[in-house]
């Protein structure tokens, strides 16, 4: 898994690629929680377009990120979910609690 950041005033986009599994979800969790809890960035976008696989530990990290964003008055926004990631979201019955958009354009204008 790789994470690249694009920053602007008041928001950050994390472009994530590869597999978010037991080996890599701790790294994503650290980046996500650091951005929300320490940097207090108001809008955090996760571009999941190039994520091939996510497991329950990855979903757990997203849930932690969501909770932290709510506690800090920030927004965690996901977009570009592949069919594989979307499936896992649906299996987890979590797709309705996250802000999810199809494209970066839609996410940024939300």
């Amino acid at each position, binding site marked *: 898994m790789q994470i690249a950041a694009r920053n602007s005033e008041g928001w950050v986009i994390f472009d994530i690629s590869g*597999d978010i*599994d*037991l*080996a890599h979800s701790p790294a994503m969790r650290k980046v996500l929680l650091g951005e929300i809890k320490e940097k207090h960035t108001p809008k955090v976008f996760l571009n999941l377009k190039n994520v091939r*696989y996510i*497991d*329950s*530990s990855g*979903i*757990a*990290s997203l*849930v*932690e990120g*969501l*909770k932290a964003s709510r506690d800090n008055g920030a927004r965690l926004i996901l977009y570009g979910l592949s069919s*594989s990631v979307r*499936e*896992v979201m649906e*299996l*987890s*019955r*979590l797709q309705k*609690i996250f802000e999810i958009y199809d494209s970066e354009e839609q996410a940024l204008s939300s």
Partner: protein
Amino acid sequence: MRAPKPLKKHNKQEARSHAELLLRLYLESNPEALCLVRATLQRATEVVHFPELESRAIVRSVDEALANVIRHAYKGRAGRPIEVTCRRLLGDPDSKTPSGLEIVLSDSGVPVDPKKLHGRPFEEIRPGGLGLHFMNQSMDVVEFRRKDGKNLLRMVKYLAPSQPERKPQGE
């Protein structure tokens, strides 16, 4: 709609006698190994002709089960042995035994208490407790047992009977 889950009606020994070994993997409890198992298992599901959606579900179930072994049975310690055995269930039209794929995970970690094996309620929005749900939702059989000092997890996915091809009308 999902195919019915017929295993409980079958004699397990009978099912085993119509199985052939596809693959046996010996790995260590290292999270970095999981991507290799997923890739290998993906190919195994293709050999057995599972549709893409079911193939992903099988791979996901095994991945979650292995993650649970690493996290819970071995408490995150690396270098502990795990064995993954895949058998192709050949099926028998006479006894209506379906074909499919059987995966058995074996580890020497702390004993699993089946009574504690339940995922978190879906309505609770909190991290964790989803892996077991994924397995139960995706597989036709999920069985835990302890034998000779090892945890054994057996999962089975049956192939749904293929639908007869429809010929276009008028030909």
